């Protein structure tokens, strides 16, 4: 077992161990924090597919996070007010079923990623960063100025949505759902990275011309990766909205994009468990530093600056050393 594999096992265990310990000590708030970390890690795993594997520096993943959130908010608000979403040409009702909401969130985010990706991937480098940022902002301003679903104030959902066989309002059961989703997606992302598609994506990041000469189309590979990445982040958005029972345009803001990127970077770009380490560290910092000083983001900024300037490879890279080419 390499050092990184060992570290990954520990990282994977940290969240459920924390949640179970908090459950035993009857500290529901800590369980909620662990849940939040699991959901934010999921958003980071999504971004990491585009950023780490594909080298696509998307600064607009808040768009997918927010779409997932609004998929939940819109469906659940119609269900809670007993009004149909749409009557013509056919009837669409709201729903409180988490599984249906996840499906809608994934599809909505994937479609948005397809459109945004198809346009943005025509550009590279700084243009790509800025154009994804601009698409995120576009949805942000749309969410603010569209009055039907709360506009700037957002939407409150009074009761968490249903999951078959579980009481979702019980913190530990909701944690189990969020962590279960994270585990499944991590497994899938790990497989994806090793599958021919993941290898082609990595190759397109390293040398697009060579990928083209062997007969593959980098644009198409990147677009598919961007869609998968957006869909995973959208799913995380739906879960995040369910955690807070609230959605607002803040989910679309570029600070959200920046934060998702921070999870990936703090943990280590391109490492499967990087986002898990990064999100857990972020939540830990938020609640330890946040307790000491109201201005904790100054320290977050300094830490991030330090990681970027001196500790490339993030937390995992620092502890486990450089990535080995063949393990």
């Amino acid at each position, binding site marked *: 077992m390499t050092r990184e594999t060992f570290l990954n096992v520990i990282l994977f265990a940290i969240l459920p161990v924390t949640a179970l310990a908090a459950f035993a000590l009857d500290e529901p708030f800590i369980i909620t924090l662990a849940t939040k970390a699991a959901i934010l890690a999921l958003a980071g795993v999504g971004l990491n597919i585009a950023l780490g594997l594909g080298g696509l520096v998307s600064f607009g993943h808040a768009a997918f996070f927010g779409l997932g959130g609004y998929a939940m908010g819109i469906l659940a608000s119609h269900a809670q007010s007993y009004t149909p979403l749409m009557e013509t040409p056919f009837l669409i009702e709201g729903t409180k079923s988490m599984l249906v909401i996840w499906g809608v969130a994934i599809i909505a985010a994937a479609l948005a990623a397809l459109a945004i990706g198809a*346009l943005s991937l025509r*550009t590279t480098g700084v243009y790509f960063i800025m154009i994804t940022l*601009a698409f995120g902002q576009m949805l942000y301003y749309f969410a603010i100025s569209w009055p039907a679903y709360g506009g700037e104030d957002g939407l409150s959902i009074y009761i968490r949505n249903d999951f078959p066989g579980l009481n979702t309002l019980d913190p530990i059961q909701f944690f189990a759902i969020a962590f279960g989703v994270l585990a499944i997606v991590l497994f899938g992302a790990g497989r994806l990275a090793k599958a021919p598609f993941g290898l082609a994506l990595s190759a397109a990041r390293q040398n697009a011309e060579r990928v083209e000469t062997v007969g593959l189309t980098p644009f198409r590979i990147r677009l598919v990766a961007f869609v998968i990445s957006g869909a995973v982040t959208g799913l995380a958005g739906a879960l995040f909205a369910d955690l807070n029972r609230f959605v607002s345009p803040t989910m679309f803001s570029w600070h959200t994009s920046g934060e998702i990127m921070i999870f990936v970077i703090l943990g280590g770009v391109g490492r499967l468990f990087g986002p898990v380490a990064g999100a857990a560290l972020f939540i830990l910092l938020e609640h330890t530093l946040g307790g000491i000083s109201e201005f904790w983001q100054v320290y977050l900024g300094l830490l*991030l600056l330090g990681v970027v300037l001196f500790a490339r490879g993030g937390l995992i890279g620092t502890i486990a050393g450089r990535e080995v080419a063949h393990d």
Partner: protein
Amino acid sequence: MSLILLIEQVLSGLQFGVMLFLMAAGLTLIFGVMGLINLAHGSLYMVGAFAAAAVAGWTGSFALALVAALAAAAAAGALVELLVIRRLYERDHLDQVLATFALILIFSEGTRWLFGSFPLFLDVPAALAGPVMLPGGILYPLYRLVIIGVGLLVALGLFWLIAKTRIGVQIRAGEADREMIAALGVDISKLYTLVFALGAALAGLAGALVGAIQSVQVGMGEPVLILAFVVIVIGGIGSIKGALVGSLLVGLTDTLGGVLLPPLLGIFMQASSATSVGSAVASMAIYILMVGVLLFKPSGLFGGT
């Protein structure tokens, strides 16, 4: 819609565009010369506004406030360049984005620490307050006209600086071939600090000028920063001319979109839904403009390769 209202909106769009130009010019210069994407540019705008508001509060002089804004933003820019930014030139864009995002967090929270969360206010100087009568019977605030004038003057000065002066020659040479001008004996690191401070000073000036119309608060630079990004993507990254054209396009689209779209949509749909759909579409208009430009010119209107 009356013609007078339309002309007023065009003037507002111009004023907005000119302010965007002050931001976008710095961003595009810094990118053109150093190849650096600087998210913290909005923080320098904020530093300028806060310095102006603080100095105006102490001395009551708007001229001193402007000087303070320029000096504070240029100093903050030079300091940041020396401490952080110069380590980033050789890094990839991802590192630059993250490090400058970290700088935003530090600047924003640091400012909140110093000045508190409540907005400050900067008054328009008495000599420039009040409206003036334009030909055709249009009443328009004098201060906003002055902003348009100042912005256009700065644009002219910038073109002159780049086309005619020694510094300008070095900047253009730096854009073309960084290694070569270093080999020719130009102190490249001093040039970089200078360009960065110049960009910062322009951002600070914009912040101070706008600070007298809006409230001066933490986070005020971020919406402007993102619009400035849209501007330089439309204009072509690295091109000052592109930044000017892009700023005016974005300023006019944003202002006129909000006024013209709702009545325009009212022709096709009910007035009430036209208002809500119109305002929603208008809020996205500049991004739609950007997508349109990039579809035809992926590296912007005046961008090279």
